Each structure stands twice: as structure tokens, then as C-alpha cells.
């Protein structure tokens, strides 16, 4: 089942990519149908899910026994919500209208390829396999930004590629550090979770931890490794940004849990405070810098840094101290995972909205707009919901995440939490300011012909925001799945 989730989009990518020129119009329907299949499969996986410390529904195959490499996939309570997020976000992003510059086949092939690779990252239970999928997402996203981006797309794409590949190479050193410490040598993640290869927080464990931390901090991204993010987002096409923010950034925070927390628990405890401080700096920095933005997409990009900082704060708190307050740390970890899902849904929606705005106005500058509420009520309504989601209004998913992380982390790092809460107030102000600049006030003459969202756009945004509302109102179904693993993880530390 899990293998099919990876394989079906991959085969779809091949089929779409190799369509003859005369059949190019088939690319879109084929791609959309193929990309929905994993969503159905994910629901089945969800229904069969039981939960526990170790991944389940494992499928494995000997691959390169000489090196100790296996093909091995499985899910736990941390990865399953992210798999579901991937399964939802990809089809709707692909459905979102975009000027494809006459390269439909390549566009849909790359998106399906990216979808397969993203599933692979979250499902992989072998470090070798994990690394393969991790790098493939970079290659795919590089092409998306470079080909269908705008502005200085080539430069932004290259910056993205070099930055994140440097991170992944640092991770490769970390992987080798773990690999060389196993006996017999293997890349098996389940075995590494059961018996961490580098117990104690010695020099070697610290260096390995550092390698992984650099990779994940770049990917997430947190300050000071975030500088690739704003240009990449601003110049990427809307659906590309949605996938980048919604899925690819999550790989950084997912890695912190899957590898740093689970495989290097002692080193993690040693450096948890440092990680928490970095995350709070990111929270504050992201919020303050967003405040200075007039570019809509740049603003959303910086709020991403705040939200991802919040997720990392939850993770750092979960692995922070020995014993005591198990419940609080468990809540923090639950909140971190909910935060990933919520940020994925809401930020993807916001980026798609910016894409729609750009398609109509060819600018992201908010001061140029105003009064769009009368011209585009559907756009306004959906943006308002998404923005309220972003600022953490109760009743929406982000609130569940914020409150869980804060409550949980408060037991571990009270001062840091107080600082972060203050930053969230800034976030609220700037989202409200964004709404005012875009939708209220007088309508400028040049926007008299501004068209509202069409049916596909509206349907896509609703399908992203509806789950955010559902999670906000009844979060139990999601938190139970997360907690089944998070509880065991924190309990073991």
C-alpha cells in the first residue's frame, strides 16, 4: 500500500513526461487523476493505523545488502499526518490554474515526480532511501522555480538548490556518522530508533547531531539559514510556493523528530536549549521582518519562518529535559506536528491566493491594492479565513498548534514561551494590516476589471481551508493519531 503511494505518482510522471506531442492536452487530466489516487490510499492507511513508538505497516525489500541498504517504508503517528497533507496538497496545487508556458507535460511530470519524492521522504525507514528522496525533491523544486517562476527565477532557483543541497550534504555526513557506528553496518532507521547507535552525547554524537541540525535548519528554515527562502518563494509560481512551503519545509521539522530526536536522544537533550533559542529567535525575527514587508508573498514567506520556529520550539521542548513533565512535553510534540499540518494547509492556501493575485495584477505590492472586497468577494472571504488561520484565531488549526506548543513548552522553557507569545501578537497585527491593504479602502481605477476567483481556484482553496477549520473545531481525530506515537516517544526519553 505504502509502496503504491510512492510508485503511482512516479509512474504517472513517466507516462505524462513521455506523452507524444500530439497528446499533450491529456497531461492535465491524467496527472490530476493519478495524483488523487494516493489520497484514497492514504485514507485506507489511516483507517488501518494503530500507533506506537515504532513505525508500522512496514514494507521492505533487500536492496544493496553489501552496503546494508534496504528499501523500507512504514508510517507512525508523526509521518502519517504529513503523508496525508502531501496527498491532499499535491492534487489541489496541480489543479490550480497556472500559465504553463506551453510545457504542460513537463510541468505535470515534475509535479508528480515531486509528489512521489515527498511521500518517499515521509515514508522512508532507511537512511539511504530517505536521503535519495530528500535530494530528489530538491531537483524537482529547482526546475519548478526556474522554469515557471517569474522575476529573477533562475537566480532564486539556484540559490535554493545550492543552499539546500549544502544542507543535505551535511546530512549525508551525519548519516555516514550513524552508519559507521552500526554493526553490522546498516541504514535501517527502525533499528536506529530502537537502539540509538551513538548513545551518550559525546563528541562524535555531537558532530553527527550538528550535521543533521544544519540540514534541517536550512530546510525548515530557521534563522540564520533562512536567506534562500524569501527569493525562492517570491519568484516561484503559486503552486510551486504552495508545495515548497506546505511540504518541503516540513521535511526539515520532520527530520528533527524522525532523526535528531529519535535516533540521537542524548545529543538532542544536550542541545535542546540551543535549538529552542534558535527557534525563538526565528519566531521573533520572522514576525518583525514580516511587519516591514509590502510584498504580499515576501510577507507570507517570513511568517512561515515564524510558524516553523514555533514547530521547532515544540520539538525542542519535547526532547528538552530528562524525566518530569512528561505530559507537558508530550503536548508540545503533539502541538508541533499539528503545527506542521496547519501551516501546510494555511500557508499553501495563502501562496495560492498570492498566485491568483499575481496572475491578475502582475504585482505582489500590497500598497497598490485596496478595496478589492467589492470586486472579488470570494477572494476576500477565502483570504480572510486563511489570514485568520495564520494569526492563530481560535477555531482554526493553527490555534490548536500554538496553544499546545505554548502550554507544553512553558513547563520546559517558560521565558522563551513568553517571548514567543509576544511575537504572535505582532503576527496578528500584520495579517490584519494585510487584509486592510488588500481589501478595504477605496478601489483604485486600475482594478475596476479585477476578476474574482474562478470555480477551480475557489474549490481548491476551500479544500485546503476546510480541513484547517475541521482540525480547529474537532482536533481529536488528528491529535489521537499523533499522540499514539508522540506519547511513546516522549515517554521513552
Amino acid at each position, binding site marked *: 500500500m505504502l509502496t503504491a503511494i510512492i510508485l503511482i505518482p512516479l509512474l504517472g510522471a513517466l507516462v505524462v513526461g513521455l506523452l507524444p506531442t500530439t497528446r499533450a492536452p491529456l497531461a492535465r487530466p491524467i496527472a490530476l487523476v493519478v495524483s488523487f489516487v494516493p489520497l484514497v490510499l492514504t485514507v485506507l492507511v489511516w483507517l488501518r493505523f494503530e500507533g506506537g513508538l515504532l513505525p508500522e505497516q512496514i514494507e521492505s525489500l533487500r536492496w*544493496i545488502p*553489501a552496503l546494508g541498504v534496504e528499501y523500507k517504508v512504514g508510517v507512525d503517528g508523526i509521518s502519517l499526518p504529513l503523508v496525508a497533507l502531501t496527498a491532499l496538497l499535491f492534487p489541489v496545487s496541480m489543479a490550480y490554474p497556472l500559465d504553463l508556458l506551453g510545457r504542460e507535460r513537463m510541468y505535470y511530470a515534475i509535479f508528480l515526480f515531486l509528489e512521489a519524492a515527498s511521500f518517499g521522504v515521509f515514508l522512508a525507514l532507511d537512511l539511504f532511501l530517505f536521503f535519495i528522496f530528500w535530494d*530528489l525533491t530538491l531537483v524537482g523544486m529547482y526546475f519548478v522555480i526556474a522554469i515557471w517562476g517569474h522575476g529573477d527565477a533562475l537566480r532564486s532557483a539556484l540559490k535554493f538548490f545550492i543552499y539546500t543541497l549544502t544542507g543535505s550534504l551535511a546530512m549525508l555526513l551525519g548519516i555516514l*556518522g550513524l552508519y*559507521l557506528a552500526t554493526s553490522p553496518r546498516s541504514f535501517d532507521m527502525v533499528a536506529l530508533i530502537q537502539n540509538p547507535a551513538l548513545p551518550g552525547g559525546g563528541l562524535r554524537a555531537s558532530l553527527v547531531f550538528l550535521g543533521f541540525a544544519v540540514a534541517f535548519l536550512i530546510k525548515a528554515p530557521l534563522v540564520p539559514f533562512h536567506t534562500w527562502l524569501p527569493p525562492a518563494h517570491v519568484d516561484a509560481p503559486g503552486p510551486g510556493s504552495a508545495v515548497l512551503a506546505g511540504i518541503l519545509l516540513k521535511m526539515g521539522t520532520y527530520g528533527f523528530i524522525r532523526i535528531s530526536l529519535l535516533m540521537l536522544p542524548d545529543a538532542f537533550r544536550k542541545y535542546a536549549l540551543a535549538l529552542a533559542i534558535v527557534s525563538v529567535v526565528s519566531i521573533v525575527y520572522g514576525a518583525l521582518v514580516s511587519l516591514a514587508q509590502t510584498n504580499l508573498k515576501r510577507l507570507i514567506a517570513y511568517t512561515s519562518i515564524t510558524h516553523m520556529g514555533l514547530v521547532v520550539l515544540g520539538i525542542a521542548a519535547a526532547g528538552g529535559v530528562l524525566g518530569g513533565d512528561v505530559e507537558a512535553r508530550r503536548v508540545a510534540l503533539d502541538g508541533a506536528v499539528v503545527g506542521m499540518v496547519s501551516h501546510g494547509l494555511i500557508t499553501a492556501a495563502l501562496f495560492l491566493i498570492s498566485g491568483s493575485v499575481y496572475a491578475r495584477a502582475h504585482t505582489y505590492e500590497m500598497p497598490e491594492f485596496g478595496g478589492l472586497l467589492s470586486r472579488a468577494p470570494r477572494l476576500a472571504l477565502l483570504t480572510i479565513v486563511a489570514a485568520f488561520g495564520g494569526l492563530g484565531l481560535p477555531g482554526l488549526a493553527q490555534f490548536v498548534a500554538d496553544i499546545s506548543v505554548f502550554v507544553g513548552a512553558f513547563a520546559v522553557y517558560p521565558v522563551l514561551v513568553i517571548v514567543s507569545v509576544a511575537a504572535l501578537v505582532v503576527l496578528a497585527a500584520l495579517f490584519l494590516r494585510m487584509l486592510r491593504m488588500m481589501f478595504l479602502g477605496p478601489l483604485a481605477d486600475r482594478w475596476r476589471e479585477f476578476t474574482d476567483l474562478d470555480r477551480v481556484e475557489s474549490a481548491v482553496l476551500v479544500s485546503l481551508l476546510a480541513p484547517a477549520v475541521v482540525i480547529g473545531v474537532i482536533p481529536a481525530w488528528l491529535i489521537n493519531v499523533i499522540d499514539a506515537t508522540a506519547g511513546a516517544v516522549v515517554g521513552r526519553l
Partner: protein
Amino acid sequence: MSLVSILPELILLGGAVALLPLVLFFPWRLQNLAAHYSLFVLALSGAASVAMLGDPQGSTFFGTYSVDDSAVWGKLIILAVTMLTVALSYQWFDRDKRRGEYYVLLLMAALGGIILAGMTDLMELVLGVLLTSATGYVLTAYHRASARSGEAAIKYYLLGALTNGFMVYGVVLLFALAGTTVLGTMRADLSTADPFALIVAVALIAMGLAFKLGAVPAHAWMPDVADGAPAPVAAFLTAAPKIGALIALSRLVAVFPESQVGWRPLVAVLAAATMTVGNLAALRQEDVRRLLGWSSVSQSGYALMAVVALGRSDLAVPSLLFFLLAYALGNMAAFGVVTELRGLADRSRYAGLSRTRPWLAFVLLIAFLSFIGIPPLAGFAGKLALFGAVIQSGYTWLAVVAIINTALSIAYYARVIAPVYFSAPEPGLAATLGIWARVGAVVPGFLLILFGIVAEPLFHSFFSAQLLPW
């Protein structure tokens, strides 16, 4: 000792020697058959090599020549490179008056590389280096009328004559110190040798091998040959001699007692310098062929990492062989695309290749991604094993240098990929060479993907490969 143990070499030698009188007397229109004939000879030699894979590993002819699996794999990789070169050459030399003799030289050059890969005696080291060099100069200058080809050959020759001369002095000195030229027995004799003389000998020999490898400080010929030599020759000369020389170097370092000669740090520094110099020089190239030449220098630097790990990590030999295989295929694929585009060098002329020639563009992309080490391509498994080997040997800093270099290298590979994929095609389709060259480019591209995914049989064999005299 039996002649059967050197059957692949004998086939190659006999094939080349028999071809020479044939092409001297055959009419010109039949000389194209020399390509078919060479493919047959190479395949025959390859079949004889494959048959040796199961045999007991050891040495032959009184310990002077090795028949271990490292030698056999070296042969196979070089033979594959040569076959691909023949495919690239067939239409390239179509109108050349002396296309027959070309294949004689090519076969002899391949033989030189193979002797290097199997050498366990200093005399054979000299033989292999000189055989690849002498044929290499002529092959580089094969377009007599082309000034660029001549210039590249002169540069190649001057540097080669100098470094080969150094090397011969080094060999003589080593012989004087050890009283033997056989590597297997040399180690014991060298343990009491004068350390200063030994260091001089090592340095002199290192110069000769660095030249073959395209490693610092004798790397300067590589971009010139890549740019000036006929494109198929450039493909061959940036791959085949390097494979032989790396395996030869790996064998040679075994005899130097580490207590007297710190060759490990020396090779590590050379590796770091080579990859850095190659990458920095490639950064600003507008000429795709020069860029490939510099990238080939940097790849030599990565390959030297395996030498650093020899004897300290069980990953050293597998990583060396796998990396060489991946490098050779990537190199043939990239130069294959260049050849199929009739030696196109100007970066801007590659604009829109992904739309006009999607398959060639894809092969080029695969080759570059494999050079960078993007999984699941063959280059990734090679680099992974290399990094593992040096980390295990206590040279983590070298792995870090390699990683910084890898990140740096993306910049120039992207400078070629960007026009190929992101620019609109210019009017006027780029001219191509023909079906032989196309096959010669696409096959290694396909193998890069295949060997990245189906790596087990290769690694399985590489792990059991001995590398005499280790």
C-alpha cells in the same frame, strides 16, 4: 604463470597489431570497418576479462602483474570506455584520410591504461604510463589541420614529457633503494631505506601519476585536451588513463612504509587541492568542453579520497572502483552529448536543447547530476562510499572539503543546465553527428541510472576485490 592470465591484454595487443597492416593496405572506403573490427576486439577482450572474475585472485609472471578483481574491473571499465569512444568516433572521423590508423592508436592507448591498472612492478608502471602518453599525444593532434588540436597536443606533450621524465627518475631511485622492481617484495626492503631518498622517489613518481590522473600539480593539460582534441578523443583521454593511473597509484602506495613516508596526508592534500582547483577554474567557463575538462580535474580529486582510505577502511576499494565506474560513465555521457552535437563548445549555443533534442538534454542532465552526486544515480553511491571510507580512516576534514566543493560545483553545472532547460531555442537546430554517437551518449546515461539503482551486484563484487600488494 600462464599466458591465459593475460588473455585480455593479448587479444587487445594482437588486435591492434593485426589492424595496422590491414589499414595500411585497405582501400579508403573499407577503412570504416576498422571501427567494427575494434568493437569486436574490445568485446572479445571484455569477454575474456569477465571470465576471469570468478578466478582466484593473485598475481602472475613472478608477481609482476596482478590478476586480482581490481585489475579485472579496471580492464572492464577501460574497455567499456573504449567501446563507447569507438561509437563516438565512427562518424566523427568519417571523412578523415587516416581513420583506419586512429583505431590502432585507440586500442594501444586502451592497452596502456589496462597495463597501468594491473601493474605490480615498476617496469610495467613505466610501460603503461608511456604507452598511454605516446598514443595520447598523437590522438590529441589527430586533426592535423586544426591549430587548436595541435596546440592542445603540444601542451599535453610538454607537460607529459616533463612529468614522465620525473617519474622515470623516481622509478630508478626506488629501484636503487629497494633492489627490486616488484611491488610485492619491495615493502620489506624499503623499511630500512634512507627516508630522504625515499621521499624524493615518491614525489617524483607522484608527479608522473598526477599527470595521468589530471591531478594537481600536473593537471593543466586536461582542459586544453578537453577543448582542443577531437571530441571523442577528449572523452577517452579524460577517462581511460585516469582509471589506470588511479588503480596504479593505489597499488603503489602499499609499498611505502607509513612510518617513513607520510603518503596518506600527502595524497589527502593533493586530493583537496585537486578538487578545489578544478571546481574554482570551472566556475567561470563559457566553453562547455573546457568546463568538462576542469570538472574532470575535480573528479580526480574526489577519486583520490579512496587512496587516502586504503588499508584503513574496508570501503576504500569498493568506493574507488564504484566511483571510477560512475565517473567514467558520466564522462562518456557528457562528452557523448558534446560529440553528438558535433563538438559544440559555446555554452550559449546550448539554449533550448531540452526542446529541440530532449533526449540529449536529458542525458546531459543525468551526467551532471551524477557528477554532483544526486541519488539515485551511480555517482551518488560512489560518493557516498568515498565519504564513508575517508571518515572511517580519520580524514573527516577531507569529506568536509569534498562537500563544500560539491556544493560549489552545482554553480557551474547549473550554468550549462540553465540554457539547456530554461532558455528558448535559437533559430537553426544544432547539427548532430549521427546514430552511432547518439547511442554512445545515451547508453552511458542509461547505465548511470541503472547502476545507481541496481548497485548490489557491483558492490558485492567490489567488496571481495583484492588490490595487490595490499
